[in-house]
């Protein structure tokens, strides 16, 4: 269990408690995210699917936490669970015809291309997972792993341009969102 080893190394001094509870948490989060992702595929009710995405995203956030990326974990919850999930729910409510959607998918004959696309994607991801040289370290994180401050320092020094570009990107997204919503409304 490679990841679990890494996890216990991350905890500066592995104690009895961490040794027992870390795997529990890891498996819980992993199972929650994987199983609910699978359930999203299987469950027919589209609204339930949307809610399942929430547990999937939360499970991922938990995994981030275990890896010490607390800032990322909470951003995940804030932006994905608190934002994108709501967006998805609104989207679902806009297109809500659950039996219809499934029927239409079958009718369009997209099953074979879908399977193909899935296979290609799966292969690509699998290939990269296997080949990329993951920089696994057995060193514990530095004592003050104050992630937000580190991110802040990085954003203010090495990544100024990406930081500012992000705002431009958000601007574009804002304008685009407004446009899309407006056109959607006008067509309706």
């Amino acid at each position, binding site marked *: 269990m490679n990841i679990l080893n890494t996890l216990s190394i*991350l*905890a*500066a*001094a592995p*104690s009895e408690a*961490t040794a027992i*509870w*870390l795997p529990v*948490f890891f498996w819980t989060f992993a199972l929650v995210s994987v199983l609910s992702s699978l359930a999203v595929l299987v469950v027919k009710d589209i*609204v339930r699917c949307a809610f399942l995405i929430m547990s999937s995203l939360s499970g991922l956030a*938990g995994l981030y*936490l275990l890896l*010490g990326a*607390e*800032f990322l974990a909470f*951003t995940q919850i*804030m*932006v994905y669970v*608190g*934002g994108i999930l*709501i*967006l998805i729910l*609104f*989207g679902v*409510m*806009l*297109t*809500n*015809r659950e039996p219809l959607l499934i029927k239409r998918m079958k009718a369009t004959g997209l099953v074979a291309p879908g399977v193909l696309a899935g296979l290609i994607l799966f292969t690509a991801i699998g290939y990269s997972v296997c080949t990329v040289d993951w920089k696994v370290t057995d060193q*514990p*994180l530095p*004592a*003050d*792993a*104050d992630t*937000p*401050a580190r*991110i*802040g*320092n990085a*954003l*203010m020094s090495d990544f*100024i341009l990406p*930081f*500012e570009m*992000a*705002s431009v990107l*958000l*601007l574009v997204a*804002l*304008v685009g*969102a*407004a446009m*899309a*919503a*407006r056109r*959607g*409304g*006008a067509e*309706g």
Partner: protein
Amino acid sequence: MTMASMYFDYANVAVFFVFAVVFVILNISVISVILRPTVENDQKDTTYECGEPSVGSSWVRFDMRFYTVALVFLIFDVEVAFLYPWAVVFKDLRGAIGGSATGVFVFLEAAIFLLILFVGLIYVWKRGDLDWVKSSSAQEVDARQRQMIEAKDEVRL
């Protein structure tokens, strides 16, 4: 802040979460099941709609406008998320009294970030996208209404 103490903090959160779930389930499915009566009645299980039978399902495609709100919100949500790291290091970087060059720089960086989005906000505002845009059919109705009112302006005393 070591990982171990961080784990401890968040283990607390996890325990609280689990406890909350168990607490609610205990309350609604165990304790109250023992105490409450269950009297089957067909009428009781109907959907409440002011005493009249409900017409159609409420699971319909809802209003477009809510989507706009969520979109606009999401943009600003991400923006705020971006600014958290900035805010937490601002105090360290701003320097001593009078402000250091780094401090001014850091301030300007965030200010530009905000300014760009502020421009976006003003743009969307001016275009009226932040207004509670009425759906087209409702707008028609509204226009008719308004026409009617305008036509009756001269009658007013």
